[in-house]
C-alpha cells in the first residue's frame, strides 16, 4: 500500500552536508529530500552516520558544510528548541523520558513548545493558564487514546517495560504536533509483537495526522514494509536512494550489507 500513498511537496531538504568531529568524518557530502506525507527511512550499517544525520536535522549538530532547507526556507544556525518550535520532533535511540514522572506528565512536556501563558498567569493559575492546561490535556488524552496507553496514564515511566517506554516516547513526540517526526530506532530491542504494534502506530500516525515520518531502523523487513523511500548511508556517504524495490536491488547496498570478497 506504500506505493499508492502520494508524496507531496518537499518538506525538508539537506544539501551537501558534511559533518566531522575533529578528525573523524561522520558525514560526507550527503544530500536528500523528504517529501510531505511520506515515510522516509534512513538505513545503513553501524557507524554509517544515520543518527548524526538525524541530529543535524533536529539541530543538535551543526554541520561544517552544507544547507538544511525546511518548509521552503533555508535554515540558519538554530538551537534544538527552535527547530522543535518549527515543527520537528523526535524520539531517541536510548529512550530519553523523565523516568520519575507519569506517562501523562511526560506527554504534557511534549506540549511545552505550544504553551503561551507567562509565569504570572501560571502563578495565578485560574483563568487563562487553567484553560490552556485543559486544552493541552485534551490533546494529550487523544494521543493516549490513539496509542492505547490508558492503563498506564498515571504510572511512572521508569516502571514500564521497554516497549511501553518507546510507545510513550512516540506519544511525547506526537504531542508536539510536529510536521516532521524523526524516529531514531523506534523498534530497537523490541519483540515481534511490540514491533508489529509500533509499525501499526507509525502507519496510523502517517495516515491519520498526515505527519511526515523519518525513521532510522535496523530491522530491514520493517523498513521495507513501512517506508515509501529509503536512503542508504555507509561510512558517512550516500550509497543509494529510492523506493524499497530500487534499494533492495542496488548492488552497492547489497555489497555494504553482505560484504564483498576481496579478490574481485
Amino acid at each position, binding site marked *: 500500500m506504500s506505493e499508492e500513498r502520494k508524496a507531496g511537496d518537499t518538506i525538508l531538504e539537506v544539501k551537501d552536508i558534511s559533518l566531522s568531529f575533529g578528525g573523524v568524518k561522520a558525514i560526507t557530502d550527503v544530500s536528500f529530500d523528504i517529501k510531505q506525507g511520506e515515510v522516509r527511512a534512513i538505513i545503513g550499517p553501524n557507524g554509517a552516520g544515520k543518527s548524526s544525520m538525524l541530529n543535524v536535522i533536529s539541530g543538535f549538530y551543526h554541520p561544517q558544510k552544507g544547507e538544511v532547507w525546511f518548509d521552503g526556507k533555508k535554515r540558519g544556525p538554530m538551537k534544538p528548541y527552535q527547530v522543535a518550535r518549527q515543527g520537528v520532533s523526535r524520539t531517541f535511540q536510548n529512550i530519553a523520558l523523565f523516568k520519575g514522572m507519569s506517562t501523562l506528565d511526560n506527554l504534557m512536556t511534549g506540549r511545552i513548545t505550544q504553551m503561551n501563558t507567562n509565569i504570572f498567569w501560571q502563578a495565578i493559575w485560574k483563568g487563562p493558564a487553567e484553560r490552556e492546561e485543559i486544552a493541552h490535556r*485534551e490533546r494529550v488524552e487523544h494521543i493516549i487514546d490513539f496509542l492505547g496507553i490508558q492503563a498506564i496514564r498515571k504510572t511512572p515511566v521508569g516502571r514500564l517495560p521497554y516497549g511501553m517506554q518507546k510507545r510513550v516516547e512516540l506519544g511525547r513526540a506526537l504531542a508536539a504536533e510536529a510536521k516532521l517526526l524523526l524516529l531514531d530506532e523506534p523498534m530497537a530491542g523490541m519483540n515481534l509483537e511490540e514491533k508489529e504494534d509500533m509499525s501499526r502506530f507509525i502507519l496510523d500516525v502517517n495516515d491519520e495526522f498526515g505527519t511526515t515520518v523519518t525513521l532510522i531502523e535496523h530491522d530491514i523487513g520493517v523498513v521495507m514494509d513501512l517506508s515509501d523511500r529509503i536512503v542508504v548511508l555507509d561510512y558517512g556517504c550516500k550509497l543509494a536512494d529510492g523506493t524499497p524495490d530500487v534499494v533492495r536491488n542496488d548492488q552497492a547496498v547489497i555489497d555494504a550489507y553482505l560484504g564483498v570478497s576481496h579478490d574481485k
Partner: protein
Amino acid sequence: MANTPDTFPKILIENATKFADKAAIREKDFGIWQTWSWSMMRDEIFALANGMAAMGFKRGDKIAIVGRNRPRLYWSMCAAQCLGGIPVPVYQDSVADEIQYVLEHSEVRFVIAEDQEQVDKMLEIFDRCPNMEQIIYDDFRGLGDYDKGNLTNFVDVQKQGRQYAKENPDYLLQEINKGTGADVGIFLYTSGTTGKPKGVVMTNDNIIITCRNSIEFDKLTADEDIVSYLPMAWVGDHIFSYGQAYLTGFCVNCPESEETVASDLREIGPTYYFAPPRVFENILTSVTIRMQDASKTKQKMFNYFMGVAKKVGVAKLDGKPVSGKENFLYWLGNILVYAPLKNTMGFSRIRLAYTAGEAIGPEIFDFFRSLGINIKQLYGQTEAAVFITMQPDGEIYADTVGVPAIGVEVKVNDDGEVIYRGPGVFHSYYKNEASTRETKNDEGWVLTGDAGYFAENGHLKIIDRAKDVGKYNDGSMFAPKYIENKLKFYPDIKEVVAIGDQKDYCTAFINIDLEAVGNWAERNNVPYASYQELAGDERVYKMIQDSIEQVNKDLSTDTLMSNSQINRFLILHKELDPDDGELTRTGKVRRRIVNEKYEVLINALYDGSKDCYINTEVAFEDGRKGSIEATLKIVDVKTYPPAVALKEAS
C-alpha cells in the same frame, strides 16, 4: 398490567420520560467519564435505528455485534430491536473461524464491529458468509484507506438516520409499536463446552419477565451503578447490563479499555456487581500476593483482623447476633483493614454481588462475605435467561446455590439431573430442532445437564455436570469439579483437571498461577525464563504437592469423597488456553478435548512411570501455530485413610 411495555424499545421510550436526565450509560473516554442520560440515549438509539432502516435493515434481519462493552454497541442492540431485528452478540476475542460459524449459522446481514481489529476479522470471513452485507464500525482508527464499499462509520449511519427521520417521521414509532413480547429478541450463542456453539433463541418476554422477577427478588433500584466488563455475548451481561438496566433505569458504566477495568471499577465503586468465580479467585490471589510483600506489621494486622472477620463478618451479614467485643473488633478491623481493602478492590459501595457460571470455592466465598461484601451465588444457564435458583438474604451457604428464582419451578428427575421450567425458558435452538427437543420437553421442562439434589433446608446443591460425574472402578462416585474447586482455592494453582472416571484412583493435571508462583520465585531467588521452566521446577512441585496433601486430608473426612484423594499429579507444561480449544471462551475446561490431547499423560499417570514426554501443538494469538515439547515429572502424593471420617460420622 396491560400497559406494561413488552419490548426494550418501548421501555426505552418510557425511561426517556421517566428518568429523562438521569444517567443511563457512561463510558470513560479521553480520561473522563462521559455520560448519556436516558433521553440522550433514546435519541442516539433512534438515530441509529433510522440509519439502519435507511440502509435497508428490515424486520427479522440479524445484526452481529462484535466488540468490547461500549455504549454504541449496547445501543445497536436496542436499535435492531426497534426495527424488529435480532441482535447477535459475538465473543470478541474469538478468532475469525469461530466467528464465521456463528455469523453463517445465524445468517446475519449486518455487522457492527468495534474497531479495526474486528473489522479485519469480518473482512476475512466476508466472502464465506453469503448473507453478510454491511459492516458498521465504531472506532475509525486505522480504517482510513480501507475500501469503503460495505464499510460504514457509525456516526455516518446516525447522520443518515437523522435525515431519514425527517423524511419518514412516523416510520420508527410504527415499527416499535409492531413489536410484541412474543417476538424473538436476541440470539445468544452458548460458549460450547461440548461442541459447536448453539444459538439460543430468546423472546422479549423471556428476558423481560426474568429480569423483572430477579429485580424483585433482590430489590434492585434505579440507583444502582454497575460496571459492565464481561463479554456482551454472554447471557449474564445481556441480563445485567441490558435487561435489568432498562427495567430499573440504573446506570451502566463501560470501562475505558480492557486493561483499565480494575482502576475504572475503583473510580465507579459499583453497588451491584457480577463476576464469575475466576475473577474473585484472581482478586483474592492478588491480595494474597500483595500481603506477602507487605511489611511484617501490616501482615500481622491483616492476619489478625481477617481472623476476626472470618468469625464475625459472615454472622453479621446474615443478621445473626454477635457479642459486644466481637462487634468492637470488627468495627476496628473495618477502619484498619476491611475498608481500605474494599476500597482498593473497588467494592466500597457494593450492596449486592453475584457469582455464577461455576462453583466457587467456599474459602473464597467466605473471604468476601467476611469483609461484609454481600456476595451471593446463583445458578443459571443461557437457556433459562440466567436465573434458575438464587440465594435469599440471610440464607447464604457456600455449598448450595439457593432456592428456585421467582416464577421458576425446579425439580430433580429420576436420573438425578436438575430440571426446571419458567418464564425465562428459551424459545428454541436456532435451526437445531433435534437439540431443542433433546433439551426441552413438551411441558416446557428443560434439562440442565447438571447433577444435583435439594438439601434439607430446601436449597439446591449442584454436584457436577451430569456428564462429567463418573465412577471409579470400585463403583464410588467421581465428581471432578468438586475436587478441582478445592485445589483452586490455593493461590498457586490456577486450573486443575481431575481424572478418575473408570480408573482405580484419582489423579490431576495442574496449571500453576504464573502471577502467584512468579512472585514467589522472585522473592526466593528462583530463576526462570518461561512458564514451562517455572512449572517444572522441583520447589514448585513440592509446593503444589503440599497443597494437594492438604486437600487429601480434607477429602478424607468427607464420607462421600474420601475415595477421591489425589494419588498422583503432574504440572502441565503450558497453560490451558481457549485459543487451543482447551477452555471455552468463558474459561471452562473442555474435558473431552483435554482428555484426547493429553492421553499420553493420562496413561503415564496410571502406569506408574516417573515422567512422560509430550509434544503439544499451540496456537498463537494471531492464528499461527507452533509446538512445545517437554518431559513432565509425575509425582506421587500421600493419601489419608478415610478412618477419620468414619469415626467422626459415628
